[in-house]
């Protein structure tokens, strides 16, 4: 029996779950038929009115994908995925642009409300006209990826005045074809790996960011991802290009509706940083992890990679991963430019039956390149978490340095944490440092906290937040607060 059908049946019997942000919006959907073949891809491409070259690129990726097999080296197990048992395209039915919020599908607004998006921002999201000057007060630009189609993009004006392009990738294909064609697949090639190839073949949307020479993006860019349609895999594709001396901070956050089926998510994120450019990419990931028995959660197979093409370019990945049933994710940096810098700050929390195999790759190609890896792994319940990190010093990477710190925190004694560092050094002058620790929250610590009046959950929250401090402080302010709450919520019921 395919995994989806099996879990659907089992989960339906379980009824209410404790997942806090489990809600599902009922908006009329426009589906592609189930199944994956060249016709599906042609349909997607046609719906999006894509140019010939992109269809060809997709088809080439699909043909490559057909010859590939799912990777099995990660320390995760799950029932086989039936790729034919899913829809690969779903778009909210198009309506003419609304004049006011009253005209907007109330279901959609309710979803935004549950996500905590303020009303005036909601108006911007659905494209309602806003009086002059209104948008200037808002600190964050949100490009809501509501299911596969970006429903709306905000702050276009402020951004475009600064010369920044921030739009759904399908729009970028239409409006900035040369840029997209030049960079799409230049960091993560279409045939890079099984999931990346699948994504290249069927991606339906995602964000596109271009920051021109010398421009500091005037606001943090943020995208809310929602997985919303039953049985629709999500294949987002994000492309961020930052030119010489420019910089951007990009936030990606998501909570998912309660699901009764396993859902595959295979996103690709490509970052390109030129000379003296800086990209900060922050993620708070809270997809439905499945119930206490591990049923029904989301499978998250992501390829994220950044290329520091120019000298002194800097790419910084920060992630707080609390959700998904299975996480397979290795945000990486290719450090080509001399003196370029790669950073990876990660907190991965697993509870109940969650499985995470995550880490990073730092490929040092240029001279004096530097990378820092701080990975914090927290395992509770019967979960299993693996840090897998590769540091590779290429022959020309003279004077390159890496520092890696991997800390694991175990809560209870039925969970597991593993650290798998791969180190390849082909340059004698390169320096690699690796530190790893494993600790447990001790009974002494718990008792001490409780004697001071803290509940077990408060105590765990305090200790866990302390454990993750070095990573959390890398997050933009509003994200850090959300992440702290999330950590506590995802560990509820893990002690005692």
């Amino acid at each position, binding site marked *: 029996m395919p995994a989806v059908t099996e879990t659907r049946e089992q989960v339906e019997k379980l009824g209410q779950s404790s997942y806090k942000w489990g809600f599902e919006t009922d908006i009329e959907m426009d589906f592609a038929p189930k199944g994956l073949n060249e016709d599906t891809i042609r349909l997607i491409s046609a719906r999006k009115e894509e140019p010939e070259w992109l269809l060809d690129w997709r088809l080439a990726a699909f043909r490559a994908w057909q010859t590939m097999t799912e990777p099995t080296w990660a320390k995760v197990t799950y029932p086989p995925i039936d790729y034919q048992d899913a829809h690969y395209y779903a778009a909210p039915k198009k309506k003419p642009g609304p004049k006011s919020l009253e005209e907007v599908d109330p279901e959609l607004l309710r979803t935004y409300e549950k996500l905590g998006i303020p009303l005036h921002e909601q108006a911007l999201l659905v494209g309602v006209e806003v009086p002059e000057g209104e948008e200037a007060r808002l600190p964050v630009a949100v490009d809501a990826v509501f299911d596969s189609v970006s429903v709306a993009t905000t702050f276009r004006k402020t951004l475009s005045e600064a010369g920044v392009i921030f739009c759904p990738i399908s729009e970028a294909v239409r409006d900035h074809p040369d840029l997209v064609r030049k960079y799409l697949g230049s960091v993560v090639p279409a045939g890079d790996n099984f999931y990346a190839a699948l994504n290249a073949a069927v991606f339906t949307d995602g964000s596109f960011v271009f920051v021109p020479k010398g421009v500091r993006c005037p606001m943090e860019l943020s995208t809310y991802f929602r997985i919303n349609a039953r049985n629709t895999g999500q294949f987002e594709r994000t492309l961020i290009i930052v030119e010489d001396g420019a910089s951007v901070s990009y936030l990606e956050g998501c909570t998912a509706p309660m699901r009764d089926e396993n859902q595959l998510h295979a996103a690709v994120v490509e970052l390109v940083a030129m000379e003296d450019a800086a990209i900060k990419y922050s993620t708070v990931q809270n997809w439905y992890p499945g119930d206490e028995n591990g049923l029904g959660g989301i499978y998250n197979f992501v390829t994220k990679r950044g290329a520091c093409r120019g000298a002194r370019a800097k790419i910084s990945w920060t992630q707080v991963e609390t959700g998904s049933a299975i996480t397979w994710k290795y945000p990486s940096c290719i450090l080509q430019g001399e003196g370029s810098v790669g950073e990876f700050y990660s907190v991965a929390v697993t509870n109940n039956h969650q499985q995470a195999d995550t880490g990073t790759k730092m490929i040092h190609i240029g001279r004096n390149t530097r990378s820092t890896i701080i990975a914090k792994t927290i395992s509770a319940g019967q979960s299993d978490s693996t840090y897998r990190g590769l540091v590779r010093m290429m022959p020309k990477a003279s004077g390159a340095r890496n520092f890696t710190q991997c800390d694991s925190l175990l809560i209870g004694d039925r969970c597991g944490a593993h650290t798998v560092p791969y180190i390849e050094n082909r340059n004698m002058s390169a320096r690699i440092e690796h530190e790893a620790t494993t600790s447990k929250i001790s009974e002494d610590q718990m008792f001490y*906290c*409780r*004697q001071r*009046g803290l509940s077990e959950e408060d105590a765990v929250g305090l*200790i866990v937040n*302390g454990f*993750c401090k070095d990573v959390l402080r890398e997050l933009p302010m509003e994200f850090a607060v959300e992440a702290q709450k999330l950590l506590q919520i995802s560990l509820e019921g893990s002690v005692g």
Partner: protein
Amino acid sequence: MTVVTDIKRKQDLCRDVAETSGVKKMSELLKISGLHASIDADGTPKEILRGVDLVIPPGEVHAIMGPNGCGKSTLSYVLAGREEYEVTAGSVSFIGRDLLAMEPEERAAAGLFLAFQSPVELPGVNNANFLRTAVNAVRRARGETELDAVGFLKAVRAATKNLSMSDDMLKRNVNVGFSGGEKKRNEVLQMTMLQPKLAILDETDSGLDVDALRIVAEGVRNLRSPDFSALVITHHQRLLDYLGPDRIHVMAKGRIVRSGGPELAKQIDVEGYASFLAEAA
């Protein structure tokens, strides 16, 4: 010293009022009866407390003295609710409630505070943040309003000043890298902020220099009121000199074998525990 006598007089008045008005509860803040507790030592239960009887009225300071390993810390852990110890017999009432039926955090909220013999390190947890979380958890449980950042800062500044402590300790992680004396002072700071009804101080005076010892004693004396009692576990006469305890209890082999006035401590100082051990046998 006059202050202390004043307070003592107040307490006596209180007790008189309580007794004449027939409120029996007032005469026993804590009542331990026939308490037996054991610990699992490699699979076999090992009895450590073998019938402890003890009563502490409100407003009094009592001391427990006794040789190493007689069960003093064990008693404090059992009172605070440590799960490793199994209570096999006996009962404990605290402000009229069944203490043994309460969770450790409920006991804390009810006003029981334990200054640990070996305070625990919490890596990564900021001391001020910990203290504020604890104070607010307890206030919430007591139905009081929580302190905001400003209110907390004010209160904690006042407390550190009172204890002649530097604010630096607040910026560090809970007990991490603290010297022995700093850890003890941190316990006293927590005690001050949490405003307990009963503070158990397990050798809080050990390893302290003379000045620190005076500060700790000051910390306890500042709290002295008809609503505050302390159970001080100590090996040293000096702290008792500062505190002027109402009663001294001698513990040996898991039992209170003798109780008396402050003169008992002086006797121990001179004679040691030999005669008490004989009594316990």
